[in-house]
C-alpha cells in the first residue's frame, strides 16, 4: 500500500502565489507538479541541491504549508483535509534534530511521546522498546547533552518513531556525520522498513548522491521539478558505457584534447584523472581516438567506468543553463 502519495503537488512563493498579482518571472515555483508514491517498506530518496524544493515538498506532505495545486495523501489521509489524522502517521527527523539538552534521554522521549498523545500507561514500555531498537537502552538516564553526535542522532530517530508512525520523513539525516555513525544509522532505517508487520515508508531528502545511493528508489529534484525516478541501479544504467576514466600527463593538456573530441559531451577533472561523458554508443570510438595522443602527451589509463549517480544528475540537468537564480531558502 502507498503510504505517501503526492499528486501534482505545486507550490510557488512570491508573486506567483498571489493569483491577483501579475505573474512575474522572479516568482519561484518551489515545487512544480511533483507526483510520487512511496510504498510501505520502501526508502525513497528525494535528491537535489539546496533550493531544489526538497524542504518545501516535505512541508507540503506535513501540511505545514498549503499547496497551490495537487494533493498529498499520508497513509490514506488527505494532508490538506485531514491534517491531524495525517500528521499522526508522520514521524519527522530534521537535519538538526531538536532535543532538549538539559533533559535525559528518557525524559526527552517521554516528552515527545506525551506530545504525540501516547497515554500514560503506554509511553513507558514504548520508550524502552524504541530505545532498545536504536541501541540506547543503557543510556536512558543520561543527559542528552552528554551524548555523542551519533547517539543524539539515534535519539532523534527514536523521538520521531515513538508514536509508531507509518511514514518517516528524514531531512538530510546524515549530512556531515561520521561514516561509522552513518553506517549504523542506515542499518536502523533498513531494519525499520524490513519489518513486514509495521511496514513503514521512509522518505529521505538529501543533496548528496552518496546518501541517495543507499535508497531503494530515488527521485531527482531540480528547480522544483522531478526530473526522473528509479532505483540507483536503473538510473546508473541510463549512462552505462558512457562514462570513461582517463589518467595521464600532463592532465590539463589531455583535458583540452578530450573537450574537443566530437564524441565527448562533458569533461570533469578529478585530481589525478578525468571523467569523460560520451555520446550514446561513442565510447569505443572515443577510446580509440584518445588512447595514443601525440608525444609528449601520455595516457596511462583510459577505460569505461561504472557511472555514478552524480554523473546521471549532471547529464540530466546539462540542458538547464547555469543561470543565476533568485532562489531563496
Amino acid at each position, binding site marked *: 500500500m502507498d503510504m505517501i502519495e503526492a499528486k501534482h503537488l505545486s507550490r510557488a512563493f512570491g508573486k506567483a502565489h498571489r493569483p491577483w498579482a501579475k505573474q512575474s518571472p522572479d516568482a519561484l515555483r518551489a515545487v512544480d507538479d511533483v507526483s510520487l508514491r512511496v510504498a510501505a517498506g520502501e526508502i525513497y530518496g528525494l535528491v537535489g541541491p539546496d533550493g531544489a524544493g526538497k524542504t518545501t515538498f516535505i512541508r507540503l506532505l506535513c501540511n505545514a504549508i498549503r499547496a497551490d495545486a495537487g494533493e498529498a495523501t499520508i497513509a490514506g489521509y488527505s494532508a490538506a483535509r485531514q491534517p491531524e489524522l495525517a500528521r499522526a502517521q508522520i514521524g519527522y527527523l530534521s537535519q538538526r534534530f531538536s532535543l532538549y539538552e538539559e533533559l535525559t534521554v528518557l525524559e526527552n522521549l517521554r516528552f515527545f511521546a506525551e506530545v504525540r498523545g501516547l497515554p500514560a500507561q503506554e509511553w513507558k514500555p514504548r520508550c524502552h522498546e524504541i530505545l532498545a531498537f536504536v541501541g540506547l537502552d543503557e543510556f536512558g538516564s543520561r543527559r542528552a547533552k552528554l551524548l555523542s553526535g551519533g547517539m543524539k542522532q539515534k535519539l532523534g530517530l527514536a523521538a520521531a518513531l515513538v508514536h509508531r508512525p507509518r511514514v518517516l520523513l528524514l531531512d538530510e539525516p546524515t549530512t556531515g556525520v561520521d561514516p561509522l555513525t552513518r553506517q549504523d544509522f542506515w542499518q536502523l532505517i*533498513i531494519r525499520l522498513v524490513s519489518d513486514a508487520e509495521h511496514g513503514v515508508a521512509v522518505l529521505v531528502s538529501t543533496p548528496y548522491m*552518496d546518501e541517495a545511493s543507499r535508497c531503494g528508489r530515488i527521485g531527482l529534484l531540480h528547480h522544483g521539478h522531478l526530473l526522473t525516478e528509479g532505483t*540507483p541501479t536503473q538510473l546508473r544504467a541510463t549512462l552505462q558505457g558512457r562514462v570513461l576514466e582517463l589518467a595521464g600527463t600532463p592532465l590539463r593538456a589531455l583535458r583540452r584534447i578530450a573537450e574537443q573530441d566530437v564524441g565527448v559531451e562533458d569533461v*570533469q*577533472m578529478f585530481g589525478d584523472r578525468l571523467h569523460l561523458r560520451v555520446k550514446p554508443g561513442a565510447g569505443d570510438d572515443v577510446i580509440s581516438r584518445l588512447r595514443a595522443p601525440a608525444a609528449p602527451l601520455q595516457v596511462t589509463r583510459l577505460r569505461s567506468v561504472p557511472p555514478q549517480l*552524480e554523473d546521471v*544528475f549532471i547529464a540530466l540537468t546539462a540542458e*538547464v543553463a547555469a543561470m543565476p537564480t533568485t532562489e531563496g531558502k
Partner: protein
Amino acid sequence: MSTVILADNLTRRFGDFTAVDHVSFEAQTGEVLGYLGPNGSGKTTTIRMLLGLIRPTEGRAEVMGFDVQHDTERLRRQCGYMSQKFALYDELTVWENLTFYAGVYGVNERARLNETLKWVGLVGQEKTRTTALSSGWRQRLALAIAFIHRPRLLFLDEPTSGVDPTARRMFWDLIYALAEEGVTVLVTTHYMDEAEYCGRVGIMRAGKLLAMDTPSNLKAKALPGRAWDVFAEPLLKSLAVLEATPGVTRAGLSGDHLRAITLPGVDVNALHAALGAAGVTVAAVDAVEPSLEDVFLALAG
C-alpha cells in the same frame, strides 16, 4: 616546488576536548590538498590555526614561510580564506560586497574587480542582493572575495556544502584553474565523494590525521583487498552471512544492496558459495571500485 604549508604536531585542546591531535603535514606549491572528515573532526580548527585565528596548544606551523603565531599579519596578507558560512553581507549587493572586501585589502583598481567578477561568472549580477543568489552563486561570490587580493594560498572551508552537482563541478574547474597558475589550495570537506577532486587527501577523524595521500594511493594502501556490491535477498540475512564469512573484513548495508570489503584472496565464487550455502538468493556479486568512504571506514575501524 616549495613547501607552502608546514604543520608540525599541531594540537589544539578546548578544555578536556582535543579538537586537533598532533597533526603534521606539508603542502607544496600548486597543490590541491583535500582535508576530509566528518563534522567536528578538527578540520576547521586546523585551518583556523594555520591562519593564526586561534593559537595551537602544542606544536607549530609555518604558512608561506611565516610562523603562524608570530607573523600572523604578514601571512594573512598572502592567504585567501573562504569560511564555511560564506562571509557575505546580506544587505549588500554583489558589487558592494566585492568592493567592500577589495577596499579592506587595499585593492582599488576597477579593472581587477571586473576581472574577478568575470572569472566567477557573476557579470550582470552586480546589483543583485546576495540574499537573492542561490547557494551555488553565493559560493562563487565568496570565492571571488577570498581571491580579490590574488593570494598565493587559498583556504576553503567546506566550500560546496549544499550546492548542486553542476555548480560544484564548475566551482572545481575554477579551483583547478587557480592551481594551474601555481596557487596552492587547501579545501576541507565532509563529503567523501568530493575528496576525489583533490590531488592529495588527508583523512581526519576525532582530531587525528589518519592518512594523507592521493585518492588512488589511499584506496590501494588502506584497502589491500577488494570491494564488492552484493545484491541478495533477504538483505538482513545476507548481511549476517557476509559478516560471518572468512576473508570478509567489513560488510554493510548500502540501500538496496550490500557492500563488502574482502581480503585479496577472496573472489566472486567464494562469496557466491558462502551466500548460497546459507540459502540466500543471490542476484549479483559485482567487483567495484572502492570509494573513499570505504577507505575512511577501513582506517577508522
